[in-house]
Each structure stands twice: as structure tokens, then as C-alpha cells.
């Protein structure tokens, strides 16, 4: 596994105002993520897990401090540059799948490819490969409403990996699934990490899910307590 730094957070502050009150989530947060890591982030509700994920994904910006991606800061990119950066480097997996209800599985998977200059056949090949990887090639033509929760999450994973991003950000990917289905999803994520070298950052409440990660960070009140699960 490569030991290159993928992400580095230096003295990151994040706060927001709710009414007249200013709420601080992070105050001088430091962390790094290496390429090829499978990092689980755990912590109680309100500890800042999702905010951290949003910061890493360039969906949100820090109030102060730097977020470096392969040594270059992303927090001073414009909205347009961040959109491009996300399209190129990140695959998002959400707790509630967030598939487009009017598109079938294959079309949902194809969505990120609209952001790349690819021919129709190239797009079709990529979609087929991604769906095959998650074991849903037979369900390509099904609408999300015709799929189970686990199948929908697999479609969401295929959508996240179809454009071959550098890393995957997963926000409670098994939070809405039963145990058996959750295991299937986690095994797919593990496969993507081990066989395809994808860096994965997964937020979860579930200690069993965190066990699939190579490293687990516990976040509490905006600070980390690290546990190495690789051993």
C-alpha cells in the first residue's frame, strides 16, 4: 500500500452561526489520510463526522486553516473549480442512496460520466464494469423503486466508482440496511480498497462496520482519538 499523503488538514477551524449563536465544530483540527487507506470515522451525533466528510469532499469550506489534497490546498478553489475537482477525484456514497428516481440503475450509474468527455460506448463499458463489480449487471434496467435497499446502495456504489475516482467518501453507507446487506456493502467497499486501491473515508456509527476499515478515528467534540485496526 502506498504511503503518500492524500489529504492533510492543518489547523482547520469550522464554525457556523445558528440564530445568534456561533457553534464551533472544529478548532485547530489536524489530520492526514494516506493514499490507499480505508479510514473509518466514528463518533456520537453532533461530533462533526459529516462536517469533516463535507470538508474533505469540497462540499463545505473551513472557516480557517488549510485542507491539502496531494499537497495542494483545495479550500481556496472557486465553486466551479471545486465542482471539477469533485467530479475528477471523489465518489460519494450516501446513507439514503440518493438515486435519481426517474432514471434506471444504469442511467444513475452513468450520471458522473456526463461530466467527462467520453463516447457513448465508453460510457456504456464503464457503466457495465461498475455494475458488474457490485453484482448488479442483471438489474441495469430497473428503476430504483424496483430495487431493494441493499441493491440501491450497490447502484450508489457503482455510481461512485464509475468514473474511477481517487477516493470514496461514504456517509453511513450501511445505516439504512439490515446486517446481512450491510456486510455485503462493506465487503464491496473492502474489495474496492484492497483490490482497486481506492482510498475510502467512511463515517459510521456501527463498530462492526468500522472493523472493515484499516484505521478508525473516533471523533468527539471536534477532536480525534485514533485506533489502528490494521493489526
Amino acid at each position: 500500500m502506498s504511503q503518500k499523503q492524500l489529504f492533510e488538514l492543518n489547523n482547520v477551524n469550522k464554525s457556523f452561526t445558528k440564530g445568534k449563536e456561533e457553534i464551533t465544530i472544529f478548532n485547530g483540527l489536524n489530520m492526514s489520510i494516506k493514499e490507499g487507506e480505508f479510514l473509518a470515522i466514528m463518533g456520537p451525533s453532533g461530533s462533526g463526522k459529516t462536517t469533516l466528510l463535507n470538508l474533505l469532499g469540497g462540499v463545505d469550506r473551513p472557516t480557517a486553516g488549510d485542507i491539502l489534497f496531494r499537497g495542494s490546498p483545495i479550500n481556496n478553489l472557486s465553486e466551479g473549480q471545486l465542482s471539477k475537482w469533485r467530479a475528477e477525484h471523489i465518489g460519494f456514497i450516501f446513507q439514503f442512496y440518493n438515486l435519481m428516481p426517474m432514471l434506471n440503475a444504469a442511467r444513475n450509474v452513468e450520471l458522473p460520466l456526463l461530466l467527462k468527455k467520453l463516447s457513448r460506448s465508453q460510457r456504456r463499458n464503464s457503466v457495465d464494469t461498475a455494475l458488474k463489480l457490485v453484482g448488479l449487471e442483471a438489474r441495469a434496467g430497473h428503476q430504483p423503486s424496483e430495487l431493494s435497499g441493499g441493491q440501491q446502495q450497490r447502484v450508489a456504489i457503482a455510481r461512485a466508482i464509475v468514473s474511477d475516482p481517487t477516493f470514496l467518501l461514504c456517509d453511513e453507507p450501511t445505516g439504512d440496511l439490515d446486517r446481512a446487506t450491510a456486510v455485503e456493502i462493506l465487503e464491496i467497499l473492502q474489495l474496492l480498497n484492497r483490490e482497486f486501491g481506492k482510498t475510502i473515508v467512511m463515517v459510521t456509527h456501527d463498530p462492526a462496520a468500522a472493523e472493515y476499515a484499516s484505521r478508525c478515528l473516533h471523533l468527539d467534540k471536534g477532536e480525534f482519538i485514533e485506533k489502528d485496526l490494521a493489526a
Partner: protein
Amino acid sequence: MTDTYLVLKNLTRNKLRLVLNCFAILIAFLLFGALGSLQHAFTAGIELSADNRLIVVNKINFTQPLPIAYVNKVRAIDGISKVTHANWFGAYYQDARRPMVGLAVDGDSYLDIYDNILLSDGGREAWLKERQGVIVGERMAHMHGWKVGDRIPISSNIFSQADGSTVWDMVISDIFRDKEPSADTNFLLFHYKYFIETQTFGKDWVGWMILTTEDSSLNERVAKAIDTNFANSSTETDTSTEKAFNRSFLEQVGSIGLIITSVIFAAFFTILLIVGNSMALSIRERTREIAVLKTIGFAAPRIFGMVLAESISLALIGGLLGLGVAVMLINGASSNPQLQSMLPNLIVPPSILIQALGYMLALGLITGIFPALRAMRLNTIDALNRG
């Protein structure tokens, strides 16, 4: 898959909403197409009027006659190049419930002034030498299946002959068309002499006079000179340009333009509110999906464009359907002979089609711009955190 596919998928995802919105827009453009065509039919004559043509009518009312002696008196006024006269005949063919436009005219001078009337070679001469000759517009001839040489009995619902008959026998000398293809040719012209010598209302009067000035800049001066000349006489005149005359004639029916514009405005305003509200609701329902698109890398301007394209597509679908129905309705109505004789220019003119397309785009833009801006400015984090 392309952005267009996404736009269409979003547009058709709620079929009932799509149908209802399209129906509302269809009604607006049906009204616009049909009423706009009616307005065009009413005002077509005004647009085709010559700039230097004046009409002289009795000051009391244009249905009252003028002494025929006025024709030569007017001819003597400075600035006038040609003068002719005409009489309304109240014509119909076979069925009194289907009136037609028939004028008794002084052939030679009338054709000199209305040089837009095009006859075949030798047609003018043939008509002028045939006392009972009549020239028929090609549209009227086509409607009745008439051809040159046909003898036709033309009746009047106003006049009668000395023997009590209301039917005048006429022979078609020629069939004319107009220089301007869109001009009305649904009328006939026959000789004033034949009319005045056979009817029983007296022999020294005309319905109205038509004249041309040497230059349209002289119109006002000439009109004033004519009316001054006959002021304080037993038959005073009212002279106006042909355009103004036609317009005032139409205004007697009512302000058609205002009525039509008001109806169209009311329809469009209502549709604007309905479709605008519907689009806003539709985008609001998709807040989370839009947030997902932005998260995976769709730039805000692209999302703005997609939402706007959706509302423009909706306006175009409903609008084109409405316009299609309007075209079918107007075509159907204009094939009715009775309506055709009343409104010979009843068609959906290209100008209405172009205007309608413009309004469709405007409707799409206005109803889509705010939802599109909302989608573009959507806060991704808030939207994703919303259930």
C-alpha cells in the same frame, strides 16, 4: 445519456402535472393563435391600404350617398391625380343568408386607382365593353366554381329593378387576382352604368368616392380642400385616408384589438402564475436530487441551464400544441363559406406564429428563471441534510 435526456426525464416524471401544465399553456396559445388570427383578419385591409388613397363619404354617414356631380368637382381640386367612385350593392348569390361583397364601379377609373387588381391579357377591355360584364376575384370564383364566360344571377338585398326583380344577370368577363397574394379577392366588380340605369333609387348619386393624391404628403391638404369645398352644402363630405377610413369602420364593430389583447393578457398572466408556481414546486421537490448532482460535480450554471431548459421545453410543448389546435380551428373556420365572405383573410399569419414562438420562450424563461436560480444557489449541505 445527455443533459437533454435528463431534462426530458425530469419533465415527464410527474405525468399528471405535465398534462395539466401543458393543457393550461395549450389554452393560452390556442387563444393567442385564434384571436390573433381574427385580429389579423379584421385589420388586413388596413395594412394593405395605399398611402396616397383617400376616401370621400357623406358626412352624415358612409351609408348615405353623394351626388355624382361631386366626382368632377373633386377631380378639379389641386393635388388629386385620379378619382373614381363605387356603390355598395348588397350582393348575394342564390342564398340571401350568404352575403358577398359586390361593388358597382366605374370600371376604367376604378382599375386605374386600384392598380393592385390584376386582370388577364385582354380582360380589362373585355369587361369594359360588356355592359353586363363582371370581374370576379379568384377566391370568390374558386369558392363558387365560376369561370370566364359564365352567366351568373347576382341578387341585391338592398336594390330592386323597375320590374320588381332583385336579380341582375351578369357575365363573367375575367377573374382577377391581387398583386399582394395575401390580399382579399373575395369580391366582384360590375359596371356602375348597368347598376344605376336598372335600379329604382334615382340616377344621380354614388356611394362614395376614392381618389389618389399626387403625393401622400398632400393627403391632409387635399382632404381639407374637398371637405371645405362641400361645406354648408346639402351634402357635406368627410374625407380621410383609406387607412383611417378602414380603421374607423372597424372601430364601429368595437375595439377588437383591445378586446383581443385583454383576453390574451388575462390568459397569459394566469398561465404565468400557474406554470411558475408549478415549476417552483417541482424544483422544491427535487432539492435533494439537485444537491446530489452538485455534490458529484455538476456545476451550478449547468444545473441552472437544465432547469431553465425544462421550463422552456414545457412552454414549447404546451404552446406548440395550442398553436396547432388554433391552426386547425382557423383553417376549419375559414373553409366555411359564410365566414369566408365575412372574414376573407382569416388565416393564421406567419407573424402570429413567430410572435407565439417568442411568447413561448418568454413564458419558459419567466416561469423557469426563479426556480433555476434557486437550484443554482442551492446550499448543498443544507439540502443533503434535509430528510
